[in-house]
């Protein structure tokens, strides 16, 4: 079973320091946010930070798309364009998606497992407050002598060894964000393993917590590897070493191995929490328990394990031996099996369910459809002879945006609408949220589907200019991108409007909600589950 029906929960979660939780002792004003060790406050900080970076990265994306509206150079010079593609990737991955997922984890994991807070509350504060400094370093690399790093988010040497000072800031930013992620992961694993309510065995845990437990293990394993890689890059740049510098006997391809040992699991680090959110939303709005809970857990674990042995499919054009190519090709295809199990189980959960289509469910269905499309193009790219043709074309750009945006981001939107009543105590505006969904869904496809055609026709990525024959689809794509960007303003408006007021949310606004957070009043009190509930 994936969830705990309320009649199987003894005790209640609200801490009542004599019935006046709203007066719980904590600083007010700005100091509340700087010094807070409360998981809900820190979750809120992470989510706002993520949204801010989402808009920063979004503006970079729109600049890129504006430049690509026409062939020829019109808005930015080529070096700055390359810097924008680098920073757009880094900002979205390290600034928007990962902190967004950690925001959900901070808010929901303690409430879903019946814990009073995260295991290391002070470290939790520290891991958030590192992020704004890292973000400033990263974005300010745009204004350094030599311009922003023009390497792409993969920061491959030798270009990254030769880039200007902006690369140093990027490397430091990656170090700091990595440290933040590692601290966050240690906190999440320790919280889940040690602070679950009595009776909540691992196999009774909500799937969102399972997804995060596995994600945190992935982070623990791969973030230090990235940190090692960029440290070596830094010493190559400034201390005369030659880890990756071929002129000094180094091996630039080694960087690619190390980077993708981090980079491929990173895809799952971003998408597994999204799987967790979807696994909460679909049963709730289908009013049925999740189909095949145990198989979902095993599928998550299988995806995580396989993600470690497929990294070189990103390197099919680097001259790998044939045996390696075959191994990485088939291992990559194997990931479709556990992923297929998950998609099948989500569909089976909806089968004969009493489905209603509120915004969280709309986003979950959008996720299901579009993520599956992104998965299919991933399978196409796994086939080495095809990948050689598509390497560094817009086909790849289309593929990973279907996974990252329509996959992860749609799940985050769905999760926000799903838990917003619990966070704010108010119901969101359903009509506007529906507009947000349809705007995002339609314009996302207008923006990114044509990129498949551009890639198939051979248009290279990370190039500010292109041949005349690619013009039409680029124009369509740019119109879609601006439509998608504008749709996100609706999201911002709905969130702010919900925080400021609206219809009062009951403790359990969704009929089908079966996890512990729905036993708490809305908004969730500042302190919850100080006396853990007993799960029978």
């Amino acid at each position: 079973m994936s969830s705990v029906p309320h009649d199987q929960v003894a005790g209640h979660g609200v801490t009542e320091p004599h019935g006046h939780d709203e007066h719980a002792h904590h600083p007010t004003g700005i100091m509340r946010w700087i010094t807070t060790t409360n998981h809900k406050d820190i979750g809120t900080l992470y989510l706002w930070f993520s949204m801010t970076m989402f808009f920063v990265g979004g503006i970079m994306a729109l600049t890129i798309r504006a430049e690509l509206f026409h062939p020829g150079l019109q808005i930015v010079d080529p070096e700055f364009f390359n810097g924008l593609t680098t920073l757009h990737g880094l900002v979205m991955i390290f600034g928007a998606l990962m902190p967004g997922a950690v925001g959900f984890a901070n808010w929901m994991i303690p409430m879903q497992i019946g814990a009073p807070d995260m295991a290391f509350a002070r470290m939790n504060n520290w891991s958030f407050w590192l992020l704004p400094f890292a973000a400033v370093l990263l974005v300010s690399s745009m204004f350094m002598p030599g311009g922003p790093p023009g390497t792409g988010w993969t920061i491959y040497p030798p270009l990254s060894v030769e880039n200007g000072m902006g690369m140093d800031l990027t490397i430091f930013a990656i170090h700091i964000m990595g440290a933040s992620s590692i601290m966050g992961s240690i906190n999440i694993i320790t919280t889940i393993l040690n602070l679950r309510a009595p009776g909540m065995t691992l196999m009774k845990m909500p799937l969102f917590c399972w997804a995060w437990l596995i994600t945190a293990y992935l982070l623990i394993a791969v973030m230090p590897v990235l940190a090692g890689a960029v440290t070596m890059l830094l010493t190559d740049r400034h201390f005369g070493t030659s880890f990756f510098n071929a002129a000094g006997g180094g091996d630039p391809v080694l960087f690619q191995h190390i980077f993708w040992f981090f980079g491929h699991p990173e895809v799952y680090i971003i998408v597994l929490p999204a799987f967790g959110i979807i696994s909460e939303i679909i049963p709730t709005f289908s009013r049925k328990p999740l189909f095949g809970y145990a198989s979902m857990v095993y599928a998550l674990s299988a995806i995580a394990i396989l993600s470690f042995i497929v990294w070189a499919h990103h390197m099919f054009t680097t001259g790998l031996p044939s045996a390696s190519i075959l191994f990485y090709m088939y291992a990559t295809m194997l990931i479709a099996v556990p992923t297929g199990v998950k998609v099948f189980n989500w569909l089976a959960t909806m089968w004969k369910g009493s489905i209603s289509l509120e915004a969280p469910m709309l986003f979950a269905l959008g996720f299901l459809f579009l993520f599956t499309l992104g998965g299919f193009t991933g399978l196409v790219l796994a086939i080495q002879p095809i990948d050689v043709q598509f390497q560094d074309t817009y086909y790849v750009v289309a593929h990973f945006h279907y996974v990252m945006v329509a996959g992860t981001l749609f799940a985050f939107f769905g999760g926000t609408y799903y838990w917003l009543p619990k966070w704010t105590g108010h119901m969101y505006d359903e009509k506007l949220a529906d507009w947000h969904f349809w705007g995002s869904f339609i314009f996302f496809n207008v923006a990114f589907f044509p990129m498949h055609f551009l890639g198939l026709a051979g248009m290279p990525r990370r190039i500010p200019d292109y041949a005349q024959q690619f013009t039409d689809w680029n124009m369509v794509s740019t119109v879609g991108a601006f439509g998608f960007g504008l749709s996100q303003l609706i999201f911002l408006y709905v969130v702010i409007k919900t925080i400021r007021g609206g219809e009062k949310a009951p403790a359990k606004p969704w009929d089908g909600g079966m996890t512990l957070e729905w036993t708490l009043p809305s908004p969730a009190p500042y302190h919850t589950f100080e006396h853990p509930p007993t799960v029978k």
Partner: protein
Amino acid sequence: MDRNVRAANRRTGLILLSIVLVFFVGAFAARMFGSPGVSIAVLGGAVVLFLVLAIGRNLRR
């Protein structure tokens, strides 16, 4: 929070931190082994083993 729980949290946190350090150093070791494929496969194997052990230990609780 109960003192035993705090101690358990500290133990878990330190174990996880030690794994972080092993992987950080492992990235440098990959350069020294000469063959990136072998060295990273060893690291990958360690991750898999760690995942299986760490989750497996807690599965029946």
